[in-house]
């Protein structure tokens, strides 16, 4: 069974974002492209108008 990996909290905003990037990159490495990209696409697609195809 895979052990859950946790993210180290940062001491400030910037450090926390850097820690998140390392955490997220690990998720990318541990999963298939199709899986991580689904999560990322929620964020990216939200910047487009809803009526677009």
């Amino acid at each position: 069974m895979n052990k859950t990996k946790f993210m180290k909290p940062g001491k400030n905003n910037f450090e926390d974002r850097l820690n998140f990037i390392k955490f997220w990159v690990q998720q990318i490495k541990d999963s298939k492209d199709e899986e991580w990209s689904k999560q990322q696409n929620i964020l990216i697609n939200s910047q487009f108008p809803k009526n677009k195809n």
Partner: protein
Amino acid sequence: MEYIPFKRQITLNRELNKLDELTLIFTQILKKYTGYVIISGYVSILLGRARATEDIDVFIKKLDKKKFFELWAELENKNFWCLNTDDVDEAYAYLIEGLGIRFAEKKNSIPNFEVKFSKNLLEQKNFEDFIKVKLKQGEVNISSLERQIAIKKYYLKSEKDIEDALHIEELFKDKLDYSKINKIKSEISIILK
């Protein structure tokens, strides 16, 4: 995701988002007329960085006025508009001046493609070592990973740029050429003097 450095190729089986789809449409038009390389933020985003962007930065190889007019016409026909001017002569003059011009889908301003000619040797080198990213639906040319990291860490240096560089560095750390990053860092320091 698989990166093969000696082939300068990344194979990416990601699900495309709307930004990727738009980029494929735009670059498929561009490449009919001139060489191109995508640089900066979208490179990190394409490779998984979890952030949005308002623009996609693209260097294009210098092209003559006639060819640019043809490119302009096709972009217009394919539903893009230029945010800087509706005059093709003026747009070309901006490029020659070293300025970037932006294109977006008609009726939208975001996201947009900022297109410019490379101005100096450092920028021109993007065309020598770019990487092809092969997606299921097509391919796009992006700046070399080492160049991307060096420019963001040692030239642009904003928090966002440092974060973009870290994303690429963490993702490919076993395959990066660190001597190349240092070489580009030296070239940057010469330009900044």
